């Protein structure tokens, strides 16, 4: 049976899809049979981030409705053999994701995969609750910013009360905090919440800190998950996150501002 990981946040635009793509690619690169599912019905974007938008024929809702089988809908990643993408539907109504339908698809996928990564839509509506309902693990993506932290806390409340594990009285979902768009130099200037601040407020196990990086936009422009850009700080940070998820003890990086040269230091550049 596969382990189901939901990438969630509550707030939009914090980096859920980037994280889902990175998590899935990172797991697959390490040899785990992985599938990543886009739960954002109506606003699919994971296919773009994964660079497979032109290969979408059938989608998640087609499978649930029995209009296509999984083999037809799954898109195999061209860079990594053990990675598959299940795209969201672009046009259907959101209620198309029924609990039974989602459950059946996950169960079938679980037979042939080690990890199922669920990319949640923003908000706390139907799509988001479906994405987290069957999860074993949750990565709560948060920016060091007030509304994002608050929404993450709300999402934690939902994870602990509205999931399958909560309803069936099983061991709760394992929750992890991923801080993204972190700018250490702004933290130093007292302009941005620090990792410690966010951890203290949410009291959550920290799985990674991804620094603000131009590489993220470059990667999405090109349809290449940023985790594959091992030159970039964001790519390295995402790689660390995957290793930590798999139980490796990897120290946190990119928490300190880069040292400036003497000239820019003097003139406060």
């Amino acid at each position, binding site marked *: 049976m596969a382990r189901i990981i939901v990438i969630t946040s509550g707030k939009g635009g914090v980096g859920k899809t980037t994280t889902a793509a990175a998590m899935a690619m990172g797991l697959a690169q390490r040899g785990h049979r992985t599938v990543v599912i886009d739960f954002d019905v109506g606003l699919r974007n994971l296919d773009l981030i994964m660079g497979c938008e032109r290969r979408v024929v059938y989608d998640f809702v087609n499978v649930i409705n029995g209009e296509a089988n999984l083999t037809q809908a799954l898109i195999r990643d061209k860079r990594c053999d053990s990675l598959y993408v299940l795209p969201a539907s672009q046009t259907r109504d959101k209620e198309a994701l029924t609990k039974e339908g989602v459950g059946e698809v996950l169960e079938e996928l679980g037979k042939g995969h080690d990890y199922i990564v669920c990319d949640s839509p923003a908000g706390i509506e139907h799509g988001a609750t479906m994405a987290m309902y069957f999860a074993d693990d949750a990565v709560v993506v948060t920016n060091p910013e007030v509304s994002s932290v608050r929404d993450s*806390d709300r999402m934690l409340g939902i994870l602990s009360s509205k999931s399958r594990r909560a309803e069936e009285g099983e061991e709760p979902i394992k929750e992890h905090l991923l801080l993204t768009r972190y700018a250490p130099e702004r933290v130093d*200037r*007292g*302009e941005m*919440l620090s990792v410690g601040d966010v951890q203290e*407020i*949410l009291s959550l196990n920290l799985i990674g800190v991804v620094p603000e990086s131009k590489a993220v936009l470059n990667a999405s422009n090109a349809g290449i998950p940023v985790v594959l850009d091992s030159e970039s700080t964001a790519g390295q940070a995402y790689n660390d996150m995957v290793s930590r998820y798999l139980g490796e003890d990897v120290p946190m990086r990119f928490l300190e501002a880069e040292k400036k040269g003497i000239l820019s230091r*003097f003139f*406060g550049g």
Partner: protein
Amino acid sequence: MGILDIFRANRDQGTASVAKERLQILVAHDRAFRNRPSYLPKLQEEILAVIRKYVEVDMNAVSVNYEQDNDQELLELNIVLPEAGGRG
């Protein structure tokens, strides 16, 4: 921090500490509210109705508070009775 920064902002005046303080209060409040049993408002209403059968009390004379610690739940009931007796 460059020399010119001395004339700009002081690092202690950053807004991050304000953000942290606001969030701590907000999150504590949100969590307390979210853990409240859903029957609380109804309970308060019914208790008030029973009391008003015997004593003339104000609509907001009854307050029901719910708190949760690590190992215990506390349901606090506070009723303010008027100074002189009831309806007789």
